């Protein structure tokens, strides 16, 4: 048998990948073939060098970088919409606007006698806002009852601000 035919088996033998019977066969050939002995020792040496060269492990910072990238991505994906940055921004702007309205001089928040239009709900020709949203299963009431809510519309001198005041009537007012 030509020695190149032994190469594959020698390569498996070098890594301990031969079953006992073929390993014994290889050993018998090695005992009588100097060329294959050299080949086998070269295989073992290069395998050892290769293993040695790959013993180095990247510095801990390289692992930490991967971990933090993965966690950051997972955090981004699982964050519910009300916890995303733009919602906070929007809420902050809304809060600032409300605060500005509250602090603004009493010109239109508490207007000295504003033009008030009092509309009694039962008689309202055009309801501006339904006092209650229609509910499923509830038939619309045809007649106003004594406990019907009272709706007040405050028209301020700021055309963009109209204040609605809806109050429950308890028999008298």
């Amino acid at each position, binding site marked *: 048998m030509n020695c190149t035919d032994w190469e594959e088996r020698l390569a498996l033998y*070098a890594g301990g990948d031969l079953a006992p019977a073929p390993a014994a066969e290889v050993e018998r050939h090695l005992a009588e073939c100097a060329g294959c002995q050299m080949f086998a020792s070269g295989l073992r040496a290069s395998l050892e060098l290769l293993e040695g060269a790959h013993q180095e492990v990247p510095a801990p910072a390289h692992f930490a970088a*991967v971990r933090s990238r993965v*966690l950051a991505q997972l955090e981004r994906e*699982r964050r519910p919409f009300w916890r995303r940055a733009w919602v906070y921004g929007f809420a902050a702007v809304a809060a600032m606007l409300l605060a500005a309205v509250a602090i603004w001089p009493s010109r239109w928040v508490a207007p000295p006698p504003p033009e008030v239009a009092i509309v009694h709900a039962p008689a309202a020709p055009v309801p501006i806002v339904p006092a209650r949203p229609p509910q499923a299963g509830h038939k619309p009431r045809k007649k106003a009852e004594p406990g019907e809510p009272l709706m007040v519309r405050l028209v301020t001198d700021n055309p963009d601000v109209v204040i609605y005041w809806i109050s429950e009537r308890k028999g008298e007012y």
Partner: protein
Amino acid sequence: MSTLTLLAEANGSNVIAAAKAGDLAAFEQLMRQYERMVLVTALRLLGSLHDAQDASQEVFLKLYRNLGKVEASGNISGWLYRVTVNACHDLRRRRPDSVPMEDAGELRSREADPAEQSAEQERRCVLQLSLRMLSEKERAALVLRDLEGLTTEEVARVLGSSEATVRSQISKARVKVKGFVERYFRRHV
């Protein structure tokens, strides 16, 4: 797979359950447990630390999304090896021209003496380069068998091929590495 790995996996089942329930701290613990295996395997397959980090990131994101499947399989290491090999294959297809040796200097070295360190680094580079001479399948088989220490049966399962194929790939790879190493060191030493 070693007894130690199997023990770690038995203890890890609670961690997997917690991570599956959305506990990111538990998932971080799981990553710490397997990050060396994933990043180092990717580095050996790709030869670039930067690429290996990208591949690791993909592997762990995939792990998070498949925790149920992984838990059911009961073999997280095998699953991670398979996904790592696939992630490296995809990444190499996307970035065929990545430079293999750019990151050799980033690896921690035990040598303090700069001259010795640079010689050691060069030797390491050559040996890492020898893996680049192999076909992708041969490299994967060699890395998993000789550097990660899996059995040929485990390598076959990870690579989805027969044991006979894996044995043939491993033996060819070993002969090629021997030839490359001997040619290089005969010329340079």
